[in-house]
């Protein structure tokens, strides 16, 4: 190779090397620039991170990864750390974070922390730490491991936030919440209780309402029932009493007389009880009305006192009346009610007084703004124990229950009395000393009658007319719509010896008959169809105005209501008789009012004067007696006979069963048959039955003998009765 070539080759090589060096230099420059730029970026990042860490609000601690051997060792803390803990960086770096711990740092949390970090896991929790000055504070601490590329942990970084205030706030909040919750719970408890009580109350209220409703319904039903019942019962009671009175007036042996008297007394008693019940029912039902009529006060009181005079005299008790001078004579009020109250009080006083006196006091207070009447019944009786005083006016209460047994009574009397007084706008009271006596008093507002008015009870002044002899020829008109009542009235009058008796069915018929005939007295039923007794009497009185005549009219009414009498008097009737009509009362009324034109002979009302009954066994049937009951009415007779046979058969069934020795059943059956046979007029049968009644304790043989007698006698009676029945 030539030198030239050699040089060319070397030059080429040199050029290649230069080019390579240039490339290398360019690459180098490029890389340097890259490195510089990267470095710049890194520095910026580090600056930002550093500033962030340094200026962070939260404390930042970086430690070595060595957890044991006194580690971890703090290698960096930021400013916030110093602010929170009080340790300057040079006081902390090289130490362990344990310097921050103290007595109240929770060991369990530290164990958890160590456990997490030991496994290379981050930790987050709350810890109590202490400042350099020993003050405690709460940290929210979050520690994360820092790993190198190979994943090995090289450091730990902790970010710590001071949560002392937050904790305190939380605690306060929690306490507040707790108190609030407690309050709420307490309130709920109370509300629950209140609700429970309310529920209970509501239930009780509901039950009470139900009970009240039921009670009210029951009470209403009871009142209504009682009112109906007593009314219904009164009608048959009237029949019983009337019949008993008639029986009493018929020929009876002593035994029968006694029995009938008991029957009569019990019936009267029962009727008065019924009246009481009816009264209280009416009062409770609010159906009772208070009337205002002008009446003579003195007369009214005297009448009541007189009523009780015989009873008081019987008991040996003085019954008198004390009346102040300033008590007005004519007043306006409910005459009947005032009399009823007085009657109740006097009858009560009589019940409980064995000796001494009963005084009825009558006073008036006229000078006050509310003038009033004062009436009192003073007695010297047993008196009322103090503890019973305030209950004395209650229903069904008597001072002593034994009183009920001894004196009878419904226990309604005083309750009715009180109600009546209150209804009249008055007041009632009692003063009593046990063993000394009682004073029952009542007041009622006083209203004077005006001078023009005529007191309704003025006629009652017509006293002492009972002595007038009654003529058997008295012409009587009995007005009643009911056939049975008509029969009864006619029969009674006939029995009393009056034969001139006419019957009218209603008011109009009565007026017509009065116009056509002349009568001495009219017995007037009040309730009648078409024209009732009141209307008829009013019309009669109007008619009489022209003639100046006065035909006495005596009202007959089943209405036992007090006040009816006043109604009658108002209508112009002269007197009032409540059914059942008692013969003696009827006679008394007729004696009082009837002024016969010609007095002939006195009526034979002496029943004893009638012929004696024939000896036992001599007569099978007393037809007169039977007919007295049936008034010759074949229908009635038939019915009575059938009834007798039915009862008799019943008794005979029992009598046919004869046994040795005492047999109460047998005795009762005999007694029953004895009674009904006697009533019918089958005296012989009645007598054998009496023999049986007395021989109820004999042996079988004797009883069978008596029975044969009874059966024989019964057969005779039935034979006769059957003939009569067929004949009828």
């Amino acid at each position, binding site marked *: *190779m030539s030198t030239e070539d050699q040089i060319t*080759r070397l030059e*080429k*090589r040199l*050029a*290649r*090397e*230069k*080019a*390579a*060096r240039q*490339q*290398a230099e360019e*690459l*180098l420059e490029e890389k340097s620039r890259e490195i510089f730029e990267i470095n710049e970026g890194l520095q910026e990042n580090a600056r930002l991170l550093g500033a962030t860490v340094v200026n962070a609000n939260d404390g930042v601690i970086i430690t070595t990864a060595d957890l044991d051997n006194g580690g971890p060792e703090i290698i960096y803390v930021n400013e916030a750390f110093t602010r929170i803990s009080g340790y300057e960086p040079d006081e902390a770096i090289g130490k362990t974070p344990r310097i921050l711990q103290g007595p109240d740092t929770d060991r369990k949390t530290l164990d958890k922390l160590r456990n997490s970090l030991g496994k290379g896991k981050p930790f987050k929790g709350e810890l109590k730490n202490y400042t350099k000055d020993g003050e405690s504070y709460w940290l929210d601490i979050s520690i994360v491991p820092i790993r190198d590329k190979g994943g090995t942990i090289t450091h730990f970084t902790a970010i710590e936030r001071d949560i002392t205030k937050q904790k305190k706030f939380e605690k306060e909040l929690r306490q507040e919440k707790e108190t609030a919750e407690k309050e709420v719970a307490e309130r709920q408890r109370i509300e629950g209780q209140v609700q429970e009580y309310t529920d209970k109350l509501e239930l009780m209220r509901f039950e009470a309402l139900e009970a009240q409703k039921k009670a009210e319904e029951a009470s209403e039903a009871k009142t209504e029932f009682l009112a109906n019942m007593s009314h219904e019962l009164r009608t048959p009671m009237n029949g019983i009493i009337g019949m008993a009175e008639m029986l009493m007036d018929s020929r009876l042996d002593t035994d029968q007389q006694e029995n009938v008297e008991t029957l009569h007394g019990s019936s009267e008693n029962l009727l008065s009880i019924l009246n009481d019940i009816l009264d209280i029912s009416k009062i409770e039902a609010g159906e009772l009305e208070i009337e205002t009529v002008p009446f003579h006060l003195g007369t009214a009181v005297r009448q009541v006192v007189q009523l009780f005079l015989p009873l008081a005299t019987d008991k040996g008790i003085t019954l008198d009346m004390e009346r102040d001078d300033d008590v007005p004579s004519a007043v306006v009020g409910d005459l009947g009610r005032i009399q009823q109250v007085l009657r109740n009080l006097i009858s009560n006083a009589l019940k409980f007084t064995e000796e001494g006196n009963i005084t009825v006091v009558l006073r008036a207070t006229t000078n006050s703004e509310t003038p009033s009447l004062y009436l009192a019944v003073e007695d010297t009786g047993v008196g009322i124990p103090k503890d019973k005083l305030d209950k004395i006016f209650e229903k069904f209460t008597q001072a002593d229950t034994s009183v009920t047994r001894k004196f009878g009574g419904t226990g309604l009397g005083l309750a009715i009395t009180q109600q009546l007084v209150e209804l009249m706008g008055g007041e009632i009271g009692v003063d009593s000393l046990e063993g000394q006596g009682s004073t029952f008093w009542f007041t009622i507002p006083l209203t004077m009658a005006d001078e023009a008015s005529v007191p309704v009870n003025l006629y009652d002044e017509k006293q002492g007319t009972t002595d007038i002899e009654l003529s058997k020829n008295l012409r009587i008109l009995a007005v009643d719509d009911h056939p049975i009542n008509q029969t009864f009235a006619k029969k009674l009058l006939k029995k009393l010896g009056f034969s001139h008796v006419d019957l009218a069915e209603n008011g109009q018929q009565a007026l017509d008959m009065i116009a056509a005939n002349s009568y001495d007295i009219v017995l007037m039923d009040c309730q009648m169809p078409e024209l009732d007794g009141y209307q008829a009497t009013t019309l009669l009185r109007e008619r009489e105005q022209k003639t100046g005549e006065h035909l006495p009219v005596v009202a007959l009414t089943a209405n036992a209501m007090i006040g009816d009498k006043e109604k009658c008097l108002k209508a112009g009737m002269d007197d009032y008789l409540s059914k059942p009509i008692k013969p003696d009362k009827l006679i008394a009324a007729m004696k009082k009012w009837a002024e016969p034109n010609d007095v002939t002979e006195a009526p034979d009302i002496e029943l004893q004067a009638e012929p004696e009954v024939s000896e036992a066994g001599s007569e099978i049937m007393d037809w007169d007696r039977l007919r007295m009951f049936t008034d010759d009415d074949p229908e009635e007779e038939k019915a009575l006979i059938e009834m007798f046979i039915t009862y008799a058969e019943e008794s005979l069934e029992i009598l046919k069963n004869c046994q040795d020795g005492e047999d109460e059943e047998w005795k009762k059956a005999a007694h029953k048959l004895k009674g009904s046979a006697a009533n019918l007029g089958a005296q012989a049968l009645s007598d054998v039955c009496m023999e049986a009644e007395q021989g109820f304790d004999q042996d079988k043989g004797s009883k069978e003998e008596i029975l044969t007698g009874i059966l024989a006698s019964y057969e005779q009676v039935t034979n006769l009765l059957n003939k009569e029945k067929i004949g009828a």
Partner: protein
Amino acid sequence: MKGIVFTELFDMVEGLFGANMVDDVLDDCELESGGAYTAVGTYDHNELLQIVGALSKHTDMPVKDLVHKYGHHLFFRFHEIMPVFFEKPQSAFEFLESVHDYIHVEVKKLYPDAALPHFETERNGDDKLIMVYKSRCPFADFAEGLIHGCVEFYKEKIDIQSEDKNTDEEYSRIFTLVKQ
């Protein structure tokens, strides 16, 4: 392809055949780089193929042998240039195993744009190692040279078998190394 492969090749050629051979080879090639290489630069791998082709012509040696020889040579050179990679591995197997997981990782850090072949290994007991070479460049022979260099470097007796598994997408060769 990293510039070092070119500079080291030229150094070896100079040593074996003299500097003129390098000039002759370069004169024969049409190179984009103009034949000026620096170790830290990056060049088209086709330039290497041209150079090796020209070298084969001038030296009358097959390309395969040349490349194989160069690989063997380069391994020893690596030991001189980059001793860090030799700190840990104590045997040929250990070194070969570190290529993929360690050496290539480090190379990537320095030269993020370096296109490195895939080099997986699989130990089969103490005595057997299977290495799979995968690349888009046809340098399996070069790799085989390096492996032989490695075995020789650690002065071990290892039998090396190879089998090509090329596909349409890449070149692949499986090396089976068995200790003797």
